[in-house]
């Protein structure tokens, strides 16, 4: 694909990307859910995991969104320094969101935070949320992660004292217990440690994009095992599958601070990517 993509084709492709993200889960997520269902011994939890797997099949076969909370659109864009679109990329992404909202259709979720007035097309001030990263090369990679409110609302951020790193695991456990069944477990947990108040949250969200079969380090595994020992289970009805994976991203921070963000993701870990432009 040439980097001279037309604005119309770009909008079409991004709208199609949204459709894919809403209708079909990445293979690694479906795999992790299937394994959880096979492993689970609690009958109620098993019934819930079966319903989830059945739902995933129906959504894919009928081409409908897997969850009625089609989320708000979070974009991660990696823009090659030599990629030359020749049009306003942000405006085109907004147009794609409007188009997808009408076509798929998506639930209009974007409201003014205070008046609660719904914009009707999933756009508004600062939304869709687009994070730009500049990378070498001639390509543009666009990832969309529709984020539902059930799990987002249960996420947490704490500014620890620098000497309290030992309490991070406990903070995650408290956050997960407090969330209970509300964020639709089995969860994926994204942890952002370090950076600043806002950077930690960004890292936590980025950590949710890690494939679920990415090997976890000892720290991540320790947290996952502890979370699953809580017995909250699928949908908070009990059982051994509270979370499927824990992924941590870190950044250096001020010597006087230790920001920690826990971004909670429901079982519907939706995201999809597309690359525009030539390879070299």
């Amino acid at each position, binding site marked *: 694909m040439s980097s001279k993509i037309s604005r119309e084709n770009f909008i079409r492709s991004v709208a199609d990307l949204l459709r894919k993200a809403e209708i079909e889960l990445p293979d690694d997520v479906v795999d992790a859910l299937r394994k959880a269902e096979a492993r689970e011994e609690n009958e109620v939890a098993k019934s819930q995991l079966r319903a*989830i797997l059945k739902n995933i099949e129906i959504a894919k076969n009928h081409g409908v969104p897997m969850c009625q909370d089609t989320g708000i659109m979070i974009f991660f864009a990696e823009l090659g320094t030599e990629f030359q679109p020749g049009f306003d990329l942000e405006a085109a992404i907004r147009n794609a969101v409007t188009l997808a909202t009408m076509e798929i259709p998506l639930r209009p979720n974007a409201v003014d935070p205070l008046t609660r007035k719904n914009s009707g097309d999933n756009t508004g001030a600062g939304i869709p949320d687009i994070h730009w990263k500049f990378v070498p090369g001639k390509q543009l990679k666009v990832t969309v992660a529709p984020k539902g409110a059930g799990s987002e609302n249960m996420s947490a951020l704490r500014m620890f004292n620098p000497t309290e790193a030992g309490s991070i695991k406990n903070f995650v456990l408290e956050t997960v217990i407090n969330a209970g069944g509300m964020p639709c477990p089995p969860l994926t947990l994204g942890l952002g440690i370090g950076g600043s108040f806002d950077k930690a949250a960004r890292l936590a969200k980025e950590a949710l994009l890690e494939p679920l079969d990415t090997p976890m380090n000892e720290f991540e595994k320790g947290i996952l095992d502890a979370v699953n020992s809580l017995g909250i289970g699928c*949908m908070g009805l009990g059982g051994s599958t509270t979370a499927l994976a824990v992924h941590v991203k870190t950044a250096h921070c001020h010597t006087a601070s230790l920001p920690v963000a826990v971004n909670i993701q429901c079982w*519907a870990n939706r995201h999809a990517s597309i690359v525009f432009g030539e390879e070299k």
Partner: protein
Amino acid sequence: MEYHLQTPLKREDIEKLNAGDIVYISGEILTARDEAHARILEMEEKGEKLPFSLEGAVIYHCGPLMQQTESDWEVVSAGPTTSGRMSKMTPPILKTHEIRAIIGKGGMKGVADALKNRCVYLAYTGGCAALAAELIKEVKTVHWLDLGMPEAVWVLRVKEFGPLIVGIDSKGKDIFTEVREKAEKVLEKLDKQN
């Protein structure tokens, strides 16, 4: 145990249900979430009559995604929303109305007492909106569309809607509270080990 119930639900229908049982519901259910609950309370305070009946009703915490056809509405997807947001507004509504079942996800803190002897909380698998849409056979009518599509009250005809897990029964047993208390004990133990 597994039960297949038909609306309107009678008190006897729900008295036999125990926390952990599986239920399938056929008949009429009404969606209501944050804004609809707030409006019900507001109208009752003013002494105004609701445009729908809540007697023997099944309330579904759901903000569906609907598509308007030429003459009708069609369900695109309609899974449960987080019931916790309705926890405070529910007991006063239960006081004045014989609601028999509330369907939602995630449980409702502090509501078990208000449900006693009159109503059950049924957990439907969160996010299973495509599955739910298959079991909704008809959109009968809609009230309060001015609240927006997700917040309006949609009257739906469902068939074998489920599997629903009895999360809080009419005798006060609450699975979510039990699971949470167990989890807190595990956390206490882990803290001691560290």
